[in-house]
């Protein structure tokens, strides 16, 4: 009956967000669907020669992951803003940046994690060598987490705007690019047989930095958006 501790509250928010995602199973299937879509579109649009596809597989997979993240980031706080829940969250006695972290974690679990787990299937469809699958999964796991955190910043800054819309993609796309570059580089390295460790290490470093700083930026952004 007493106010929950910070840890309890974050766990509660995480469960709530996951439950909400489960209530929209189609939304949950989103990354999978989007992956399928783009993987179908690419051979259709680019021509299906298998050798060409293999060259581009890392790039295509990573671009898809990035787009799918970009497109779902906008919704992280949107519905909570629209129905007034975000006001209540901002007023909660628990520290806002930790609550925000719970939201981002839920978003990552329902997009990035799922995406990384299903990526091997699509990688094989694009003729990516089996030896590179491990690196692909790890790079996606690390990279999409960074993307979710960065996307959260954009979402927090734009959620209150009546005339924002796709502003978020303009805000966060430049921030996404380094992740894309190191992510594809890691997979390319694995394909060509050179060590991909350094790239994964850089992604890991980016993730640590993002975990440390992004929640603060998100919390600040949410407070500003609620106010405006």
């Amino acid at each position: 009956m007493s106010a929950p501790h910070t840890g309890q509250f974050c766990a509660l928010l995480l469960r709530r967000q996951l439950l909400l995602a489960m209530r929209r199973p189609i939304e949950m299937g989103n990354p999978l669907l989007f992956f399928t879509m783009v993987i179908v579109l690419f051979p259709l649009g680019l021509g299906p020669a298998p050798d060409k596809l293999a060259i581009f597989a890392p790039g295509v997979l990573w671009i898809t992951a990035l787009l799918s993240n970009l497109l779902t980031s906008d919704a992280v706080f949107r519905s909570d803003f629209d129905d007034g829940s975000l006001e209540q969250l901002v007023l909660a006695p628990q520290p806002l940046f930790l609550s925000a972290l719970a939201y981002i974690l839920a978003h990552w679990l329902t997009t990035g994690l799922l995406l990384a787990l299903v990526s091997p299937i699509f990688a094989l469809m694009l003729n990516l060598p089996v030896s590179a699958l491990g690196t692909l999964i790890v790079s996606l796991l690390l990279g999409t987490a960074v993307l979710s955190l960065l996307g959260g910043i954009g979402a927090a800054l734009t959620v209150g705007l009546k005339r924002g819309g796709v502003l978020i993609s303009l805000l966060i796309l430049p921030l996404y690019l380094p992740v894309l570059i190191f992510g594809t580089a890691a997979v390319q390295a694995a394909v060509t047989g050179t060590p991909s460790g350094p790239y994964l290490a850089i992604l890991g470093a980016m993730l640590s930095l993002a975990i440390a700083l992004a929640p603060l930026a998100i919390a600040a952004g949410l407070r500003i958006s609620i106010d405006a």
Partner: protein
Amino acid sequence: MSSSAAGAPLLAAQSLSLVRGGRELFCELSVEVHGGQLWQIEGSNGAGKTSLMRILCGLSRYGFEGEVLRSVTPLYLGHQPAVKALLSPRENLQWHVSGEGLYSNEQIDTALARVGLCGYEDVPSHTLSAGQHRRVNLARLFLSEARLWLLDEPFTAIDKQGVDETQALLASHVDGGGAVVMTSHQPLQVTCNVHTLNLVHGVVS
């Protein structure tokens, strides 16, 4: 419980002034809310009631002059009901984002029953009628332990009986040493004393 108005105020606003869209909504407004008081903010549509409430609870932090001191964490219910359409009323209360408390199933059932949602505990909230939707939010009042309540038009879409019951709850909260600051376009019919703050005339009475 100290229901004496002499102690430290739960909420104190000092010379608040606000201009919005080129109109001065209020100017040099000061008010102290003590335990045991029920304040009604009056004013016609667009007078600035909601703006004032958001300043009092701390959601608005820029664009006004003056200072607000809060000695307790208030419970704020705004125009938006903060009820998630995809969750059932029970889930809405159990996992509420306000971080207020962890309630047992019985407590939640009791609260839902008291707002007349018995039998609707586990349907998705978007199948509720407009008034039932808002009642889910009102159920938080039956659970809350906060001493200070800030309620912005809590009676919207609620039927006559619901309004009467909510008013009785407000009175008992105030009698128990709590404080309520609220807005409503309907005249209050409560057993306790009502302090009014009229935004048009800037009168505190």
